[in-house]
């Protein structure tokens, strides 16, 4: 009789070799690379830094759970970052480089509507999906491409909510003053607000623009003061808005409602102005107090905020959150598609509805997020109170900015 051990030996040996061999075959697959042009220096350095933090949060969370599941492989996620120094022309060059030299799998758009629109053309030409996490103007998405996906919902949705909210709460407010920075997003959202408000019965007593690098707003503000508005809507980025608020105080202006965007939603606004920031309202595309749940990473807005605070020692704003969410929807699309093929991933991005800690995201036909969840915030005694939506509000509108 054959030795039972020797009878089993060969199959066992072969089996053993196969098992050992196959573990050797499971080598680490190449990481998935997201190309990220970031404005880490220059006039948008603050915003670029926030985007980077948001992106890093997502990458860390995804890699912590093993990476991205692409078919049978687990692949790590990584970002290829370059600093475009807040110069649009350099952003375009860097995106070109990311596509042709680094050959990244996907792209992140640079900061802001203007730079996003400029670089979206390249994504279209090379047919690589690009996620825009800081562009809200509808004009960005009108180039009839299919590769640009915007996390922030359109300006129009934001201003409609604002007009409705203030009209309900302060029905005696009739006169509106609009003062906008002459740049894509601030100009667009101011124009959208002006048109929406005018249709809703507001009288526009002042409608002006100012250019970048303006150091003195006293004269425009003097004119605005003369018009005696009930609502001032000032747009720009953080630096200008700080000076505008200061000079309003210098001129002794008191206005029932003062809304400033974008930049007033960032903590640096309140830090620089101190008590002058009291009762200034702003809008946001997300806020840490939101109650959204997320089954993919973080678990929900609360946990995201806690993790962010632990890592960066400050609260996240909608900018960081949108950057994280942008990376998240990309990764989820890759997993659903089972590959990094741009066509397959694009199909998933265009059709799926994502439930994230940032809120529900579903990209409409133009590529922009079609689910609107505008939030209205007000700075009350150094803290941000959420005024709207009613489901998550933490405070009521306090009327009067600049009252002594």
């Amino acid at each position, binding site marked *: 009789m054959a030795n039972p051990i020797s009878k089993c030996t060969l199959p066992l040996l072969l089996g053993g070799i196969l098992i050992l061999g196959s573990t050797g075959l499971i080598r680490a697959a190449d990481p998935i690379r997201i190309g990220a042009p970031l404005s880490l220096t220059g006039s948008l350095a*603050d915003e670029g830094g926030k985007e980077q933090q948001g992106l890093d949060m997502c990458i860390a969370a995804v890699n912590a759970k093993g990476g991205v599941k692409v078919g049978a492989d687990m692949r790590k996620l990584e970002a290829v970052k370059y600093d475009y120094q807040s110069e649009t022309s350099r952003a375009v060059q860097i995106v070109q480089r990311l596509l042709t030299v680094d050959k990244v799998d996907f792209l992140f758009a640079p900061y802001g509507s203007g730079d996003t629109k400029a670089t979206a053309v390249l994504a279209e030409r090379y047919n690589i999906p690009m996620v825009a996490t800081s562009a809200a103007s509808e004009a960005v998405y009108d180039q009839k491409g299919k590769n640009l996906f915007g996390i922030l919902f359109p300006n129009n949705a934001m201003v409609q909510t604002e007009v409705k909210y203030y009209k309900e709460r302060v029905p005696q407010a009739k006169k509106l003053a609009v003062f906008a920075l002459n740049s894509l997003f601030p100009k667009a959202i101011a124009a959208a607000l002006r048109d929406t408000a005018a249709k809703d019965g507001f009288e526009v007593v002042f409608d002006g623009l100012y*250019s970048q690098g303006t*150091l003195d707003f006293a*004269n425009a503000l003097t004119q605005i003061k003369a018009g005696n508005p009930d609502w001032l809507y000032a747009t720009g980025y953080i630096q200008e808005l700080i000076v505008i608020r200061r000079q309003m105080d*210098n001129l*002794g202006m008191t206005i029932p409602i003062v809304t400033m965007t974008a930049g007033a939603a960032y903590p640096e606004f309140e830090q620089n102005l101190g008590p002058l920031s009291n009762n200034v309202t702003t809008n946001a595309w997300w806020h840490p107090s939101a109650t959204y749940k997320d089954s993919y990473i973080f678990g929900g807005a609360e946990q995201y905020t806690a993790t962010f605070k632990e890592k960066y020692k400050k609260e996240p704003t909608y900018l960081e959150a949108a950057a994280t969410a942008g990376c998240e929807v990309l990764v989820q699309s890759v997993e659903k598609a089972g590959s990094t093929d741009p066509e397959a991933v694009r199909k998933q991005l265009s059709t799926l509805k994502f439930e994230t800690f940032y809120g529900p995201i579903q990209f409409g036909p133009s590529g922009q997020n079609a689910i609107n969840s505008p939030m209205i915030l007000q700075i009350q005694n150094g803290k941000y109170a959420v005024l709207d939506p009613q489901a998550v509000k933490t405070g009521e509108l306090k009327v009067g900015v600049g009252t002594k």
Partner: protein
Amino acid sequence: MIAQYIANGLLIGSLYACLAVGFSLIYGVLNIINVMHGSFVVLGAYVTIYCTLYLGVSPLIAAMIGCAVLFAFGYLVQRHLINEVVTAPIFISFTLTFGLDLLLNNAMIQAFTATPRSLILNYGSITIFNVSLSIARLGAMVLALVLTGLLYWLLRHSQMGRAIIAVRMDHYAARLLGIRVEHIYAITFGIGALMAAAAGAAMAVVFPITPLLSGVFLGKAFVICVLGGLGSVPGALVGGLALGLLESFGAVVFGSQWSTTVGFALMILVLVVRPSGLVGRKGFE
């Protein structure tokens, strides 16, 4: 309301004057376009802000510290770097200061980050005859005018000042008369940097400061010097006030977004019609 516009124009105009006077002096005496001027202003502003916030001194003392630091810095930079090319064609020194500015500006971005910082001084405002004036801006205006006046006095009535004028007129002759020309050059550059720091301290009270503003300040200094006349302290004063008033009324007539354009358009006009500036003469004071 016209009174308010005039007041606004004068308030910002005196800041502009202080901004330009250092630049004008360096250009006039050393024949150097100091591209670092904007960065000096920002550095002075930062020193003021940090001294006020972390050393707890009053903004005025912090401003003086800023002036002293920048004076020393300017002196050293000129004596050891720019002095090598001070007699070379203006393009060479322009390139050198441009390169140094790139270094300085990016060093500041690294050190301070681009996040805007400012001094939160809530001094309030006063109203005279229906014109609202911010106390902080008034203080900045006074500081700017006093320092400009001091500089004017220095140039006219002190030994150092006359030596500076002499070097400017003819540095060979000045050397023959026993004036240490390298030292005078460096002192002048230091004074230019000091005035920039003073302007920066004044700015810190009214605007949030970031290193990215240096280009804006340099542009303004340039326009003012052309408007008022290069190398002349009264010229910088007149030019600064003129620009302030022009931007003020330009904003009202054409809209805020045109105020910078109005300034530059006027600069071109002055270059064509009266190249020596409104107050400048083809000579020295």
